[in-house]
């Protein structure tokens, strides 16, 4: 493998569960040496979250964990012991980034708060990703992606008008807004550290990045004086714009006409003769005004069609359309994702050959090939003790026997 953008960067990774681990995955996949510091005394909850290889629960069998932890190494250190905390401090001393997503104060209780770290390593970029940030009346509150999604508005804004909100169905902030904003901030802070030799403290609430990707909704409230409501599958300007049921069980086509020239093309693929729709539907404004009636016409015309065939014909005619793909479509059938090499299968010591996301982008000049699956809990303890901490085998054996390396 050639030089990657983060080759030579070391990360002391105390993150766990969702957003934190996904942040450091991005950095690990691009060459950083990410040392995941964890312990069987307090197992990362996501190691015990389904799905499990063959449905059998185990700390080294979760696919949810595995995908978030590719390319990392794991050292088991019990931070409840004084010697364990001392070892963690030694790793921190030789790291470029120190990352955690605990509630504020937890790292300080290990002697690893920002003030402690700055003293032993002033170059370190210290990433803290607590739920509400390290200040304010809700500083100590706790939450997960799902509850945070509710707190920041994405849950309310996703649903059918007039029904209870539906949300994204996932811990959305954990997977896209929080890890991406965090990784971006770390990369920026690393640049500053390269240029000045100075580290800094990154206080990233797990609420604020998701609110940031809903910006226009807040301007609707403050400029136009109204609370935006969920749009179902609609759009403020385009019509038709929605999901249309196709043949088969739970099969849907997503269709958006984003340009008046696409309207006759859509009609032609759907077999709707010119006379079957009002003339004025030639313009976007009229289609949008009549969108409910329009949706019925389109839905009637798609009901017996095969979703894949229909979307292929619409694309050939220049109409934006795509199948609402389920996990099997995305993983096993989508020819685009296959051509892009999005899915990678890595051989894991306990899970065997299993599925991972490659990065959703290609750095064509410094291409990445994922090779390292998620680590077993403590898989690299001895290796890291030798290489990074400079311990000999006797010392390692003693620390294992005393319950420090566990």
């Amino acid at each position, binding site marked *: 493998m050639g*030089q990657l953008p*983060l080759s030579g960067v070391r990360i002391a990774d105390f993150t766990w569960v969702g957003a934190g681990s996904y942040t450091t995955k991005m950095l690990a996949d691009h060459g950083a040496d990410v040392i995941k510091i964890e312990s069987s005394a307090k197992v990362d909850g996501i190691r015990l979250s389904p799905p499990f*290889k063959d449905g059998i629960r185990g700390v080294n069998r979760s*696919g949810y964990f595995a*995908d978030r932890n590719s390319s990392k190494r794991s050292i088991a250190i019990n931070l409840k012991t004084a010697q364990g905390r001392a070892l963690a401090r030694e790793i921190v001393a030789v790291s470029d980034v120190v990352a955690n997503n605990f509630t504020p104060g937890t790292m300080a209780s290990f002697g690893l708060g920002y003030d402690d770290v700055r003293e032993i390593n002033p170059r370190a970029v210290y990433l803290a990703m607590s739920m509400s*940030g*390290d200040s304010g*009346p809700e500083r100590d509150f*706790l*939450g997960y992606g799902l*509850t*945070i999604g*509710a707190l920041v508005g*994405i849950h309310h*804004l*996703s649903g*059918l008008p007039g*029904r*209870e909100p*539906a*949300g994204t*169905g996932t811990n959305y902030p954990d*997977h*896209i807004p929080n890890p*991406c*904003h965090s990784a*971006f901030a770390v990369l920026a802070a*690393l*640049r*500053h550290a390269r240029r000045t030799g100075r580290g*800094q403290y990154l206080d990233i609430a797990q*609420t604020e990045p998701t609110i*940031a990707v*809903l*910006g226009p909704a807040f*301007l609707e*409230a*403050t*400029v*136009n004086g109204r609370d935006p409501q969920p749009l179902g599958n609609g759009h403020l*300007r385009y019509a038709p714009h929605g*999901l249309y049921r196709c043949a088969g069980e739970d099969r*849907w086509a*997503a269709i*958006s006409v984003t340009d008046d020239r696409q309207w006759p093309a859509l009609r032609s693929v759907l077999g709707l003769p010119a006379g079957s729709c009002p003339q004025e539907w030639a313009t976007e404004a009229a289609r949008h005004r009549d969108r409910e009636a329009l949706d019925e016409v389109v839905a009637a015309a798609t009901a017996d069609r095969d979703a894949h065939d229909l979307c292929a014909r619409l694309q050939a005619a220049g109409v934006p359309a795509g199948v609402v*793909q389920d*996990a*099997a479509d*995305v993983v*096993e059938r989508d020819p*685009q994702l296959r051509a*892009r090499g999005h899915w990678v299968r890595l051989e894991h010591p306990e*899970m065997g050959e*299993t*599925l991972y*996301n490659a990065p*959703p*982008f*290609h750095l064509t*000049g410094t291409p990445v090939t994922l090779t390292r699956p998620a680590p077993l809990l403590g898989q690299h303890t001895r290796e890291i003790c030798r290489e990074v901490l400079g311990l000999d085998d006797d010392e390692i054996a003693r620390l294992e026997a005393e319950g420090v390396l566990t």
Partner: protein
Amino acid sequence: MTEGALAGLRVLDLSGPLGNYCGKLFAELGADVVLVEPLGGSALRHQPPFAGDRPGLERSLAFLYQNTSKRSLRLDLEHPDGRQVLRDLAAGAALLLETDSPGRMAARGVGHAELSSINPALVTTSITPFGQTGPYAHHEASDLVCLAMGGLLYLGGYADGPPVQAGQQQAYAAGNLFGAVASLLAVTAAETTGRGQHVDVSVQESVVMGLENAAQFRDLEGRIRRRTGGRQWRAGAGVFRCADGYVYLLAGGIGGNRFWPNLVDWLAGEDVPRVDELRGEQWGEREFVEAEENRELFAEVFLPFARGRTKAELYRDAQKWRVPLCPVARPSDILRSAQLRHRDYFVSVEGPDGRPAVMPGAPYVLSETPWRLKSRAPHLGEHTDDVLRELGYSTERVVGLRKAGVI
């Protein structure tokens, strides 16, 4: 004032909905971001909602949000002189951001290969619905189509209805965000090695990153995850109605059922009837809490209690007992959040019609190199002259370009 972490980087943002937020992230950490817009204005200027619901080039709320802290250069890239201006700009830029169909920039003679012959350290980031390569590279898409093809749409919505999209264009958000990370990775490499590169970002794949564990469920357990919105999917997990709206309760946390005892203690402390029925080891077992009769039992105990309290009261009390519960907040609730006010999260700029426009501010707090809002979104072509003068263009040359309709 401290320099931003990205000070000294010049970014050319030729994008629209797929890249403008990415450019904003660079701008507000200190990069000098120039929006290079076609004569009719960038695509996002034409997207609703508009201030006062009146369309206009300076009235799109999405544009006004995603382009703060940038300058605007109006430039006709269909004109050879316009392309020369872009080449001159690219000579001093670290990053060029574009979201045209694959091959369009190269066809104009300003693709990455040509620009990097002028500036070998230049990073060009292309964010497109399906990426630069593969059988769908030239497919047409919208945010909805990307969300569908990435598999996230299938997970949203109600068990008894169609899938429902995530609000506020989250497929495009994902493309912008992964595009920003990818761009800064490439800039990192360029600053170390002197060599730029072409970065190829797929919005579809960026959406796939949000599937949580759905792909692994398919791979490891052979199950297809389906949508569960609007219902309690596990005892104590889901949306519950209260006095003034809804709250989201996740008593289990992630893995195990960590907070269940806290929840029961809270309800017992409030003298909630039948709370004793929620006690016992069995409430820590996945099969038990997923069973319909136990979900119903929980709802029978919890809902009458929640109905008498507001979402703010439930949030405050639940957190006191260390129970992960949050309000299902609306934007107007969030604008009033005491927490966000304490952190000075929202910022105000001059909006259309001279009225203040309040919007989200720093998505992160950097202690040494703070996030900084530099200015409201630029008017179309507001900085054309400034940018060209900095490039060393003479007044005559600028006048000539303007006469020729290039700027």
